[in-house]
């Protein structure tokens, strides 16, 4: 093999078979594993130790920043930079500044979460090695894939093929690297 592969991919018919395969791969000591499925499989995500707790933090911090900026700018504009006496009402009318601050907090939190999601997932990425696997287009419909990545310390082409073969997949194929 002159060209290093991206990984070895096995195709399964059911999510149960994929879950079994992921368990077996972890048991065999593989650490760089990815799985692909047409719908969320929280069980496998847990198995692979995927932690999503950054997401609420993004929302929380962005929301706080948004609220602070909105409240601060309302205060500065209406009480400091352009004080306008409207019938003797207080310039720093904090209750009137609350609704827009809450709304803008939600704007920042929502936009940051969804845009942050794309950054975390490194999307958009229109081209990816896994798309070269024959039949991978059904990963968005009814097929389940397990991929052992080339940077796994235990990566060895023949051994992995043998290991995956035992799990009775529908197909095993090598994923060629992009460059």
């Amino acid at each position: 093999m002159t060209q290093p592969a991206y990984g070895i991919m096995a195709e399964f018919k059911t999510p149960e078979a994929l879950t079994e395969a992921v368990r077996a791969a972890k048991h065999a000591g593989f650490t760089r594993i990815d799985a692909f499925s047409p719908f969320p499989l929280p069980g496998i995500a847990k198995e692979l130790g995927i932690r999503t707790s950054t997401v609420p933090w993004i929302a929380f911090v962005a929301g706080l920043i948004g609220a602070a900026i909105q409240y601060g700018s309302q205060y500065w504009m209406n009480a400091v930079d352009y004080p306008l006496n409207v019938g003797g009402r207080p310039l720093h009318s904090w209750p009137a500044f609350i609704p827009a601050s809450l709304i803008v907090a939600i704007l920042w939190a929502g936009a940051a979460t969804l845009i942050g999601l794309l950054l975390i997932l490194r999307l958009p990425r229109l081209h990816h090695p896994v798309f070269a696997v024959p039949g991978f287009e059904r990963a968005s419909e009814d097929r389940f894939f397990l991929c052992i990545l080339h940077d796994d310390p235990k990566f060895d082409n023949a051994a992995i093929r043998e290991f995956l073969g035992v799990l009775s997949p529908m197909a095993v194929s090598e994923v060629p690297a992009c460059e």
Partner: protein
Amino acid sequence: MSSDAHAAMSPIADIPLSHHFGWAWWLAFLAAGGLVALLAYTLISVTIIGVGVWGVNIPYVWGLDLINYAWWIGIANGASLFAAILVLRRHDLRTAVNRFAEGVALFAVICAGIFPIFHLGRPWLFYWTFPYPATFEVWPQFRSTLTWDFWAISTHVIVTSLLWYVGLIPDLATLRDRARRPIVQRIYGVLALGWRGSVRHWAFHQRAYRLVAILVLPLILIMQSTVAFEFAVTLVPDWHETRQPLHFVATGLAQGLSIVLLVAVLLRWGLRLGRYIDEGDIDLLGKLVLASALVSGYLYVDEIVAAFLSGGLAQEATFARMTGEYAGLYWTAIVYSVLFPQLLWFRNARLSTLAGVFIGVSIGVGIWFDRFSIIVGGLQVDHLPSSGRSYSPTLPETGLFLGTIGLFAALLLLFVRFLPVVSMFETRHDEHEEKFS
């Protein structure tokens, strides 16, 4: 599940991928397109000539433009609230209804946004509501409810459209993978952003989606209350009421649900999606609409009781709205939004397409009259002796209203034609669960 699921998903995915649109779609789209042309005409005429083409004048400065604004916002908020609750409760109904409920919300808020901008009179200066360092060194007045509205509408548009799009990404990937024509593959491929269904991606996707759905809940309540505050903070006797936000939130929810019901029965019938939006879903939706209509009914009773308890000018103003020149609007609102939906007590009515269309439209019409009654009827009694004028909308105003209905219908028609109206990945998930439970 493999070949089953493959076949099962076909009907939803086949709709956007087919080149045959069908004569009914073209006919509907032509009609909607005609109304969009009318919208363009009325918007251009009001921009060139000015708001004088509308029937608004002191004291009736908030005519059909604000009535329609409040009405569309109600639909947008009601539909959004409903979609968010379904996602949070992980209710089975969400699979069937969530996607297009979010679509209804998004299209309604686009229609709503048109009115306040053109209501400004000089719509090309609408960006003045945004605080930017202007050469004349003036900032917006944040103590006014009208500036809150700017943030509310823009936030609703941005957050709803992002949420809707992010929810669509996995389904766009399915369309990309199923499409046969290269150009179609390419378009869906770009829109899907290279989604490859990695389990790690799914985990983050679901977490973020649910989190933003939670954020939508307070947004809707604040936004609808902001609309109500625009009335409540004025000194107009009939509007200056603490019950105003509750009235707008609750009747808005009824209205949003009724439009979701209307679209659901039409999709079921028009796209033959009976398997995905099943009888149980429609039955449940009917019950929800009925419950929300009962809450509206409670609020109308509350309005009358509150008027009896108040007294003075406030009481006089509310009674003038119920019995005066514009009393017809008030009672029409009650008949259409509270009495007609009582049909939904019957199971046959809940399951019938015709009854669904009738009640969906009926609540929409009822709440429209309610907003009309509040905005115009509420101004008859004021602290100043009335000038004795009355308000009736002119043709350009009516055209604007019909035009936004056309725009809403056109957007909805394009949506059902080019995107999956029912979440495919959720359906796959549900079918799998059912099979193994």
